[in-house]
């Protein structure tokens, strides 16, 4: 209730918001020196917003924004060197909605470059786990999860393509919520993969997460994919997805929690999703990489980000900039994505993946007819040490997303709730059924 009470007090004029924001910024700077949760702390903007604080649903509340979401006049790089220096000339739709409701933007949180990763290590500014600095925060919204754990008077805007909200939320012991694809406008998001990107929320209290979601969701004239529909209603019944293999500690915590929910009278059964179990990972990565390779084509040192003296012809110039400033993981994904879309291979890889995706969505839809909510652990492992991550091959890295890619591929709303400080349980609902996730989360 810290946040709701605070907002109420700000709206009543009982709080000196400038003073509060100064203290929050002081804490954020101190924490950031040790943990690298921010690429930019937007002190000037935060104080400017605090001085003329508006009444509203988020009055005076400090909110961090994942670096891939544009904030006007604040450097926004999506964690990439190639966008160094880029200052957007407009606010993303979600940022404008937050400001219009009195929210205070405190900075841009660190992340894997363009969201390419599960551990937030594919970037220069690597966030460290709030409970153990030798371990990962998870990714790609690692900075958002870390600062959410460290500061109570704060909510975070995060973004997910294949699990980038729930994975770091689980590793940092906070709530990570990802809505249905299209519920929140992507206008102003530095895209990773257009048919997969979703902007969501992190917080410590489910009511606060719901509050921020209600502010950022809704139609946007700048976005052709925003959509909203009425929620379905009906009794809660959980289908536990079968077939996962996770760390034994996570397994025990998961089943203990399910037992608690059963004792509250919620019906629980197991459900098989064999196609998702076998094919979601490959399908997800092929689509994500194909889309990201086209999205990243625009970074060529011409209109924003890294630029150099104009020498050579255009192909040589573009190649020089891209080869110099993209990280290895970006190059790897561009290579796989470009290959999957090339003549002669497109049908076998990219189109095949899109067809399998259709089948995976239908498998989920069938399950939702019986179970309004599905559940499984969020991550198969506890946060690894950075020294362990270095030993993983790219394929082993991608396999860490095995539990989170399914709902992301299908654009389904999902949420991770903490089971302890290092792991979480994930609930998944049908399209536009976010209310089911909030309902079950409130029984926590």
């Amino acid at each position, binding site marked *: 209730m810290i946040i709701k009470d605070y907002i109420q007090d700000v709206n009543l004029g009982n709080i000196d918001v400038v003073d509060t924001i100064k203290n929050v910024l002081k804490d954020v700077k101190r924490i950031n020196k040790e943990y690298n949760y921010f690429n930019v702390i937007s002190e000037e903007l935060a104080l400017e917003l605090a001085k003329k604080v508006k009444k509203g649903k988020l009055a005076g509340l400090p909110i961090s924004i994942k670096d891939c979401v544009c904030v006007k006049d604040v450097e926004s790089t999506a964690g990439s060197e190639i966008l160094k220096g880029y200052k957007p000339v407009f606010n993303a739709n979600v940022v404008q909605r937050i400001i219009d409701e009195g929210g205070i933007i405190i900075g841009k949180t660190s992340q894997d470059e363009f969201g390419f990763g599960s551990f937030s290590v594919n970037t220069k500014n690597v966030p460290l786990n709030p409970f153990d600095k030798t371990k990962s925060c998870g990714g790609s919204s690692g900075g958002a999860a870390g600062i959410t754990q460290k500061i109570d008077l704060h909510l975070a805007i995060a973004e997910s393509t294949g699990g980038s909200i729930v994975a770091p939320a689980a590793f940092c012991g906070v709530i990570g919520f990802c809505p249905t694809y299209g519920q929140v406008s992507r206008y102003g998001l530095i895209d990773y993969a257009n048919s997969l990107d979703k902007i969501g929320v992190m917080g410590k209290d489910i009511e606060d997460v719901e509050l921020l979601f209600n502010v950022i969701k809704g139609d946007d004239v700048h976005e052709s994919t925003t959509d909203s529909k009425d929620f379905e209603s009906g009794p809660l019944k959980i289908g536990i997805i079968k077939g996962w293999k996770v760390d034994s500690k996570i397994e025990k915590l998961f089943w203990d929690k399910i037992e608690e929910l059963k004792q509250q009278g919620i019906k629980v059964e197991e459900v098989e999703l064999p196609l998702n179990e076998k094919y979601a990972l490959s399908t997800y990565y*092929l689509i994500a990489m194909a889309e990201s390779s086209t999205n990243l084509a625009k970074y060529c040192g011409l209109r924003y980000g890294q630029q150099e003296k104009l020498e050579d012809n255009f192909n040589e110039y573009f190649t020089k900039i891209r080869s110099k400033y993209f990280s290895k993981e970006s190059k790897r994904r561009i290579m796989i994505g470009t290959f999957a879309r090339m003549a002669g291979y497109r049908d076998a890889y990219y189109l095949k993946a899109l067809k399998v995706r259709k089948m995976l969505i239908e498998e989920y839809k069938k399950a939702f007819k019986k179970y309004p909510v599905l559940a499984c652990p969020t991550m198969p492992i506890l946060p690894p040490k950075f020294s362990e991550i270095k030993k993983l091959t790219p394929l082993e890295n991608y396999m860490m997303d095995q539990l989170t890619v399914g709902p992301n591929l299908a654009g389904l709303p999902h949420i991770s709730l903490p089971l302890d400080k290092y792991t979480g349980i994930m609930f998944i609902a049908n399209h536009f059924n976010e209310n089911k996730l909030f309902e079950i989360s409130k029984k926590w």
Partner: protein
Amino acid sequence: MRLDKKLLKQVADNARLKLTEKEMDEFLKELSEVLTAFSKLDEVDTKNIKPAFHPIELKNKLREDNVKKCLTQNQALSNSKNNHRGYFKGPRII
């Protein structure tokens, strides 16, 4: 999936990337492994299945074609280092 250096070079050229010899060697091994794993999708019978370009079936959403405020020329150029008389300046084409 058999990936060789010639094909890898072709992909890199298409993507406007110049890979070092070291990167070529690493990517050849890694990408072969990844693509072999992804080829698992070959097992799935997708005959008569339509591709899902989006997770949700979307309808076209159109807006009124009205004149509205947009970015000024200065705003549009504000992140560009190479510009000339209000235009973006690019590398030579020929």
